């Protein structure tokens, strides 16, 4: 491998974060093991360990699923209990997999994995067809606004690579998906075990003309998924060096959440409503001409206005509305149920406050999409539409417009545990 090409490619590589959903039985771990192995992200010592374990357990083949089993308790029980992150790269792209368990009780893990994903990969067993679980996974990915969805129809080798099986699942799923927000869908027939259509095109399914899974992952276009129109800059930290050299330096540090910021832009600071102009944008020791998501930069304003952590810088004629009344879909993540009148801590961008549960509008059945309006509470792993009242105004956008300024977490004030994930409606 030539030095120059290595350096160049790794520097220019872009990033795809994807979440996988499916149960142990769907062959998800085998598929991930296959992707890691075929992209050479697995090292000799890891593969040797897995081969030795497979042999000692008396398996006929090397169980690639063992590559992704993390914790001792999981290996003992043969299950996955938590989101695990995996990494691999091809010459043009680096991949971060959020590998989430598919059991009923672990909806919260799937929501967690999907929250940062550009693409969701749902596995179904070709022999079983669409199950309640695969529908639920698709619903969660859609609620979390994961822009790209792949349905991998696995174990095609066990149905004799029959096109009719694929066509039926394809038909059923696309019909179901019309009720969801799925802007981009690809249905790929594969065999994770034998490698058909994973990295290499299958010779067993000449009737399939679409991309292999790896080809799709490598080429799916994610750059336009960001909002580059509506400028949103949540102020995270105020940098004041208090040194002789930088005596008057006052910069607002943060990560751009939307739009493009440029020196000279007329901006408004929320919630105060004070206006000013961007005088300069720093990226470490450089002045830069533009800042866009997800850059972490430091913004300077022309006027000496009062700005602190939790404030938001936006354009004068395009700013979020400060509000204390929040209408959101909430995924509840703890055993004690969410109840009306309950008080919780809320974190939205860099702003924290307290929230009161005004009422629960409905509970969403993630299998049937039925809205249960009679519900009095939300149990663990349930999703519902809830109205909150907050102690401080939040500077929000609908989650469908911006996944950063449209999301929040709820924290139990007594235990400190994250108990809910919210996506703002509008």
């Amino acid at each position: 491998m030539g030095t120059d090409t290595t350096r160049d490619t790794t520097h220019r590589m872009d990033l795809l974060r994807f979440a996988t959903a499916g149960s142990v039985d769907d062959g998800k771990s085998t598929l991930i093991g296959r992707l890691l192995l075929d992209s050479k992200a697995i090292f000799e010592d890891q593969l040797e360990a897995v081969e030795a374990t497979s042999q000692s357990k008396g398996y006929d083949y090397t169980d690639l699923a063992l590559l992704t089993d993390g914790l001792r308790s999981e290996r003992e029980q043969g299950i996955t209990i938590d989101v695990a992150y995996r990494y691999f790269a091809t010459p043009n792209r680096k991949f971060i997999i959020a590998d989430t368990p598919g059991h009923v009780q672990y909806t919260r893990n799937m929501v967690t994995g999907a929250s940062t994903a550009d693409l969701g990969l749902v596995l179904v067993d070709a022999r079983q067809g669409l199950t309640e679980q695969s529908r639920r996974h698709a619903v969660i990915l859609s609620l979390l606004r994961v822009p790209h969805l792949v349905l991998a129809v696995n174990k095609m080798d066990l149905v004799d690579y029959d096109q009719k099986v694929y066509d039926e699942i394809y038909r059923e799923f696309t019909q179901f998906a019309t009720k969801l927000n799925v802007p981009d869908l690809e249905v790929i027939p594969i065999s994770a075990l034998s490698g058909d259509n994973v990295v290499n095109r299958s010779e067993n399914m000449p009737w399939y003309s679409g991309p292999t899974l790896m080809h799709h992952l490598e080429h799916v276009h994610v750059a336009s998924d960001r909002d580059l129109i509506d400028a949103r800059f949540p102020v995270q930290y105020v940098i004041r060096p208090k040194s002789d050299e930088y005596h008057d330096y006052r910069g607002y540090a943060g990560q751009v959440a939307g739009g493009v910021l440029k020196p000279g832009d007329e901006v408004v600071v929320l919630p105060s409503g004070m206006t000013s102009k961007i005088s300069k944008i720093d990226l470490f020791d450089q002045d830069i001409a533009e800042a866009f998501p997800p850059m972490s930069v430091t913004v300077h304003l022309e006027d000496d206005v009062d700005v602190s952590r939790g404030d938001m810088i936006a354009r004068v004629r395009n700013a979020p509305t400060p509000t204390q009344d929040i209408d959101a879909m909430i995924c509840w993540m703890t055993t004690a149920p969410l109840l009306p009148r309950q008080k919780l801590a809320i974190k939205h961008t860099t702003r924290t406050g307290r929230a009161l549960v005004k009422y629960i509008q409905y509970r969403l059945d993630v299998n049937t999409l039925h809205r249960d309006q009679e519900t009095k509470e939300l149990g663990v792993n349930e999703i519902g539409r809830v109205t909150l009242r907050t102690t401080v105004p939040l500077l929000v956008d609908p989650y469908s417009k911006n996944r950063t300024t449209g999301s929040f977490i709820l924290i139990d004030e007594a235990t400190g545990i994250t108990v809910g994930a919210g996506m703002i409606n509008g």
Partner: protein
Amino acid sequence: MTQTRTDYRLSQLDQLEAESIHIFREVAAEFEKPVLMFSGGKDSIVMLRLAEKAFFPAKIPFSILQVDTGLDFPEVMETRDRWVSRLGVNLVVASIDDAIKNGIIPDAAKISRNRLQIPTLLNAIEENGFTAAFGGGRRDEEKARAKERVYSHRDEFGQWDPKMQRPELWSLYNGRLHEGEHMRIFPISNWTELDVWDYIGRENIEIPNIYFSHQRRVFTRDGMLMSETPLNPLREGEVVEERTVRFRTCGDITLTGCVESTASTIDEIIDEVAVARKTERGATRGDDRFSEAAMEDRKKEGYF
């Protein structure tokens, strides 16, 4: 001003950097007394660089904590001192020898220094009242790390409970703590070994010279090439010879092995890493070899 970008794309390395800087700033804003755990290895040096960039032109607003095992490579200590003086940060050293002398930990000759780092570290965190401790752990390193959060909660005993981890969504981190608890923070969770090297090359970061190819007197133990040092007496049958080697990680001199290599520049190291067939820990770290769950067990007790 740099040129206007028209495609509005960030390379994956820039995206990783932006994410890490976001984490550093979030912790500095929300925690009363953070500290950066510094081992002297390449990952913790990359962390220093990211912290420098996150708060520039202000100084890094927290101290650096090093656990002195008494078995560190001298080259690593020299590099540490140069970084500390350049950045003007406060260095806190927690020494295992002092902890033994002061009766904080037992003087058990049979317990490895690697294990003794845990009580020494936890004592230093408690004594100084640190509420958040940055670590350079990466999820690609090891199975147990693959499941650890960026904000990883530790109870009053400094323990990690993998089954009770808080869900971590979007880039919304939950830093709530009770009295006596602390948070471990892993800003480079999503970086791979190759990303770290790429970044060291791109940023022209100074790292200890033992990462580069050099002549060293070594012997073979448990299939690893170990450095000849009075701290690590030879056992029967072990023979010292001079080889051309470099280190892939910087740990305890008695447990960290080197690999034969002629890579003497960052680019050559990157080429080597790109085609490496063994994980950096599997190849050269005696401390991870004791059992399949070695890291998981140490992490639960409060390891880095």
